[in-house]
């Protein structure tokens, strides 16, 4: 075995307490910097998963004007301000089948379905509730959003022009049950519908206000003929949605709003939090490095005479440094290994006994993830801090004068 490795290992084994202290410090640091991001990532992963999969990945809409357009007109040499209001009608898609036909050949599209969205009031006797009704085609909408996974009772197959699917929360508020009838009223008209399905998405905002009706029912209630508000699209890889969005805009001439556009603040928050998390991890590892540095200084100081002897026996300053940096490296390696194993066990224990959290975001259990990048980040930070902590005292130790340290008895 190489002398440097052999002596480093001998030092580690002979200074058991110091070695255990270094390994424990590094292990503790690695445990924290793996466990916390694992829980954090678990939360955000589930949150994003729910966010991505509870609505279409992208919506094709007609260009939305900002509202009033003011222009100047000259009539009989006089200037007039002309205010042109863009109506809702103008912003709807007139022929959704042609839109779907135009995009069907774009690679990566899994499904497309028209949607009408409007607001109305659900009335059950004395009880009233303002809701957002989504007019959808079934089973086409199932190809865009997996609504069946949230189904509690009934079937979306029964979502005919006289049917309505409501959330369990809305049912509770209006004292409705499966197969009951309810009136959905809008400013233009109203219709009595039968509750054909109850769902529970876990998203409080959605469960409190969203109902599903047949596309034709929504069109009639909104008095918009055969127009629709948007065409919802599901794509294969929602994380790389931009190029498909561009292709769709090019193919249809309509505006495309992706789930990323709708959740810009959430994504930005996650990015900021990930950055903050990295800084916290760095700080933790700096604290660990300070601890390791203290122990390594004690360890190396106790070896000054040995360093002197090594130099007298023909080891260069660089060779002396190698021995002690290798010690720091090996101790950090064992620390990182122990820390990673402990973190894995802790995540496993935590996932077996998850802490229930508020359902506001649709995430009910806070679970940790086993992610390679998190482990690598922890291990690399541990390595650097351990080696750095060993490097400083090793550097000074390598500069000692052998005659000076060997003269004393």
């Amino acid at each position, binding site marked *: 075995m190489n*002398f440097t490795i052999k*002596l480093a290992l001998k030092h580690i084994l002979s200074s058991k307490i110091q070695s255990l202290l270094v390994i424990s410090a590094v292990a503790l640091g690695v445990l924290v910097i793996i466990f916390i991001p694992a829980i954090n990532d678990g939360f955000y992963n589930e949150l994003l998963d729910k966010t991505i999969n509870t609505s279409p990945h992208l919506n094709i809409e007609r260009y939305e004007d900002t509202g009033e357009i003011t222009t100047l007109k000259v009539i009989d040499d006089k200037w007039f301000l002309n205010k042109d209001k863009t109506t809702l009608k103008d912003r709807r898609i007139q022929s959704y089948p042609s839109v779907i036909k135009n995009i069907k050949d774009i690679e990566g599209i899994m499904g497309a379905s028209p949607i009408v969205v409007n607001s109305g009031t659900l009335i059950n006797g004395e009880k009233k509730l303002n809701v957002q009704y989504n007019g959808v085609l079934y089973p086409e909408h199932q190809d865009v959003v997996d609504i069946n996974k949230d189904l509690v009772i009934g079937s979306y197959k029964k979502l005919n022009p006289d049917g309505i699917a409501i959330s369990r929360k809305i049912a509770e508020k209006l004292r409705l049950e499966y197969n009951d009838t309810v009136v959905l009223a809008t400013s233009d008209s109203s219709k009595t519908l039968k509750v054909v399905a109850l769902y529970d998405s876990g998203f409080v905002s959605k469960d409190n206000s969203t109902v599903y009706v047949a596309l034709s029912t929504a069109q009639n209630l909104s008095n918009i003929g055969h127009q629709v508000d948007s065409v919802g699209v599901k794509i294969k890889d929602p994380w790389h949605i931009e190029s498909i969005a561009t292709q769709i805009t090019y193919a249809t001439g309509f505006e495309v709003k992706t789930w990323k556009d709708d959740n810009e603040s959430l994504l930005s928050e996650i990015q900021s939090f990930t950055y903050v998390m990295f800084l916290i991890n760095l700080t933790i590892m700096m604290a660990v490095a300070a601890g390791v540095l203290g122990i390594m200084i004690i360890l190396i100081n106790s070896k000054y005479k*040995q360093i002197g002897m*090594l130099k*007298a*026996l*023909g*080891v260069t300053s660089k060779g002396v440094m190698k021995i002690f940096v290798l010690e720091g490296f090996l101790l950090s390696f064992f620390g990182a290994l122990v820390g990673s194993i402990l973190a894995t066990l802790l995540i496993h224990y935590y996932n077996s006994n998850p802490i229930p959290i508020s359902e506001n975001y649709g995430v009910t259990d806070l679970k940790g993830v086993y992610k390679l990048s998190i482990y690598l980040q922890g291990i690399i930070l541990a390595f650097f801090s351990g080696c750095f902590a060993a490097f400083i005292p090793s550097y000074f130790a390598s500069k000692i004068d052998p005659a000076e340290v060997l003269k004393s*008895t």
Partner: protein
Amino acid sequence: MIETIALYKDFGTEETFITHVIKGISVTIQTGEFVSIVGPSGSGKSTFLNLVSTLQKPTSGQILFDNVDITTFKEKELAEFRNQTIGFIFQSHHLFPELTALENVLIPASIATKEPEFTNRARYLLQRVGLEQRENYRPNQLSGGQCQRVAIARALLLKPECIFADEPTGNLDQKSTQEVFELLKELNKELKTTIVMVTHDENLASQVPRTITLIDGRLQT
């Protein structure tokens, strides 16, 4: 052959205070000689030994080792010189507590990455210093005299041309002192290794064929 020419060594700086410790020593030590360096405390014995053994650099002057000026050596050359050409024995044995007697003897070979080819010689040397039964003992399981004998075996492992010994019996009792000294004499005779030994023990010095006396950093003629 070791030859020093007008060797000077100062400590301190002009801003503080300069101490002239070695004041122009010129001396020649022939190959195979056993030389003791004696002198009163503070006469510069150990400093002189540190200079000729390359542990310290002289302020001025030359040290020729087989006609090569070793004061011009860079760190890598120095390390190789210390490893291959010379050996050290100090007042304290400076054995590595983590290693066994055999491993301690093998350190110079390990540094030179020649451990396998010198294992038999290390065992022979341990036998030669009377410790063949103790090769797997650690320093804390050996007596002071035994540790010093391991240190002698370590110094001899790579067949150095010269051994520098700084008060090698300073920490030993009278019996061990005589044993270690006899061993050094035998090895000098048997292996023809040059030995330069600093001692304040007049009895030992009187038993060495040649004695160099230093007084106030100068050779006493």
